């Protein structure tokens, strides 16, 4: 496996260091269910390192776009259980970038409180859809 950037051909030794850490964490997830998060922003990775890491991990079956206080992307990599998560700020700058080694990233779950609230709203909509329209004030 060459540790060279796909973009510039520069050497990218850190991409391999992170990859081996991901491998250990994924083995742990498979054996014990223990999750790991690797914060890519806190590592001294160059854009070349990141591109190389992305290439090594590849693309998986799942790709989600979230609109939660700004945009986020959650992508499964070519290795099940290894997720690449990017939270974007204004101007689509990356505010947080992490690799989550988990069955499902937490941010994709609907929270029970949100579900309860949605259930109430939907029940109201089912019982009073017409009343709602009639009561809508004009103008």
């Amino acid at each position: 496996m060459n540790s060279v950037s796909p973009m510039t051909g520069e050497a990218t030794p850190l991409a391999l260091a992170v990859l081996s850490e991901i491998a250990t964490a994924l083995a742990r997830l498979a054996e014990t269910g223990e999750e790991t998060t690797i914060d890519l922003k806190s590592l001294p990775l160059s854009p070349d390192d990141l591109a190389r890491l992305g290439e090594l991990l590849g693309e998986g079956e799942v790709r989600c776009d979230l609109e939660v206080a700004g945009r986020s992307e959650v992508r499964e990599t070519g290795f099940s259980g290894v997720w690449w998560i990017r939270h974007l700020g204004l101007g689509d700058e990356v505010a947080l970038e992490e690799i989550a080694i988990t069955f499902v990233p937490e941010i994709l779950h609907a929270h029970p409180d949100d579900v309860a609230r949605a259930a109430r709203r939907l029940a109201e909509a089912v019982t009073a859809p017409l009343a709602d329209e009639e009561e809508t004030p004009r103008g």
Partner: protein
Amino acid sequence: MAEFATLGERLAEHGISRRAFVKYASYLGSLMALAPEVSRSMAAELAKARRQSVIWLSFQECTGCTESITRSYSPTLEDLIFDFISLDYHETLMAASGEGIEHARKEAMAANKGKYIVAVDGSIPLKDGGIYSTSAGQSNLAILEETCKDAFAVISIGTCAAFGGIPKAKPNPTGAVSVADIIKDKPIINIPGCPPIPEAMTGTIAYLLAFGKVPELDHLGRPKAFFGDNIHDRCYRRPFYERGQFAKSFDDEGARAGWCLYEVGCKGPVTYNACATTKWNGGVSFPIQSGHGCLGCSEPDFWDKGGFYVPLSGSVGPTAKLVGGAAIAGAVAGLAAAAVARHRKSSLNKG
């Protein structure tokens, strides 16, 4: 309901789901190097918390600290903090004025007795009865003592409030002192910097709000999560320092090649702050990356440390031996070692 609602309920009212808390907490978790399970409980605790009353006092200052916190780079994410706090008094930002607003400050203090946070920017002049800075007819000293009396905690925002800063620089004509020189009976958190990194301010407030306790502080009262790293240890120019490659002036060949700025006065080796990692303006850059040495603005008395362009070895203090260190072209300390240092692994770093 609004005043008593939890933050989770408040945001839900506006159609924002609990995912926003998950996202905000992982963002802060990354900045503060918290373990993932701590981030996770932060998300849950924040959603359960009530809006935090904050009273902001401005004394001898330049308003740069307020500029910094209100100009945080990624508003969609970072602005969440302004949903979490109720800024009940801030002389620069509030629309109201006069008697009415002074009354509002006292009302907020009474309604949230023992629970509100006082944020202070600026130092407090004590000379000549404190007449060099007053507002609403009261000296800064009187307002500070009165407002902190029933506070839960005090956050000194910026180097002036934390250490006296520029007003205290020699010859200190107004007798300026820091908040901690006056307030002795409340927890004080120092967030120095000129100005401080906005994420250090908002992150500390969010931590207080989620966990109801002061984050771990260093010997100067600064949260270790933001001030635990030495600029020099996290500096991307460090390999040049190790090889003894120094810029000798700001436009020589070394400067153009991005060599170490030690000899043109960089104070990175004696400065603790998050500039080299969190950086500024949403992670765009920081002074050293823009070609200027670190001024050491998050350290006490940075203005009086022998000159911004004088190498550390030429200025006062115990740092003279650093010259030896710089001259020795040691083996490049493995970057991979640094790479592992801040990984957030479930089993590590609880709390």
